[in-house]
């Protein structure tokens, strides 16, 4: 399972404990990246201790599973006034090295908390240098970009890159520009669970044949 961040509300130890208890019930191996809510304790100690012991920098890392290369990025650190999420030079350099030796047929799944593409600048829903990260991945035949933060589903495809945001399991947020702020949206109780959810990503091999016909000399 991939958790795209905001495990907690206020980075408190008991909140991390509660989340861990609930998530562990799924019985799955879980890979995390931090959301801005997970890094608000002093020195960001709790997240690091629990989830980023073997990660680089502020918590970025990669791993391979079933032939897919997974990359977890951190874009909620050192946020600057008036700016969007940021990856930073160190992380981009690491990303470049991380994918350098891989064949372009390796499926890539990259995930971060804030959208790596600009969903809505006015609400800070994007990443300043997200396009630089994506450009490092464009050579690959299949790139899936996942994120949380905006608590609703949006998708787009650019060439071989599929962007997909996810619903939240916590609360609903409004569509861009439809409310005075991105604050929690009050929805009727009976509708709530239809607006919260998780995302499944399946590994699907392409099934298109090449338009080339081979004819043996003898049938």
């Amino acid at each position, binding site marked *: 399972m991939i958790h795209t961040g905001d495990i907690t509300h206020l980075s408190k130890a008991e909140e991390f404990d509660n989340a861990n208890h609930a998530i562990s019930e799924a019985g799955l191996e879980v890979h995390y990246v931090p959301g801005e*809510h997970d890094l608000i304790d002093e020195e960001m100690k709790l997240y690091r201790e629990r989830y980023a012991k073997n990660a680089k920098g502020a918590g970025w890392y990669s791993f391979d599973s079933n032939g897919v290369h997974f990359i977890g990025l951190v874009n909620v650190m050192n946020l*600057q*006034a*008036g*700016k969007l999420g940021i990856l930073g030079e160190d992380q981009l350099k690491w990303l470049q090295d991380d994918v350098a030796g891989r064949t372009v047929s390796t499926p890539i799944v990259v995930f971060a908390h804030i959208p790596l593409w600009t969903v809505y600048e*006015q609400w800070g829903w994007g990443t300043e240098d997200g396009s630089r990260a994506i450009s490092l991945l464009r050579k690959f035949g299949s790139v899936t970009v996942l994120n949380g933060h905006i608590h609703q589903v949006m998708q787009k495809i650019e060439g071989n890159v599929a962007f997909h945001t996810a619903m939240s399991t916590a609360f609903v947020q409004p569509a*861009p520009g439809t409310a005075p*702020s991105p*604050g929690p949206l009050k929805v009727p109780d009976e509708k709530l669970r239809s607006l919260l959810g998780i995302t499944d990503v399946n590994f699907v091999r392409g099934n298109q044949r090449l338009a080339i016909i081979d004819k043996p000399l003898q049938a």
Partner: protein
Amino acid sequence: MQRLRHTRRLRPCRAFLLAASFLGVTHVLGGAALAENPTVNIEDFAFSPPSLTVKIRTAVTWLNKDDIPHTVVSKTRMFKSKALDTGDSFSFTFNEAGTYEYFCSLHPHMMGTIVVESASRAAR
């Protein structure tokens, strides 16, 4: 896209109107408009008022009225609150005249300004 452009165009106008109305009040009332216990409310992912003028050696209090935690961090890191949960507040006393820009380090599109007037200007 239509919506995006539309909103962008409106934004500066609205900011200007807010600023204008605020300046208008302080102008008319002079020093009397400088509240004794000035408070900036944090609501709807914004600092309200976005710009506040106070006398030197005044404590400004920020009060989070949102359901989401926010922080108050000066651009120069001169003051920095911890994360303010709903109903939490943070105060800082300004001992030097000047213009202080700040933002929320969790939602950096939220920005505000505190203008601190020197004693002589405030007494005018």
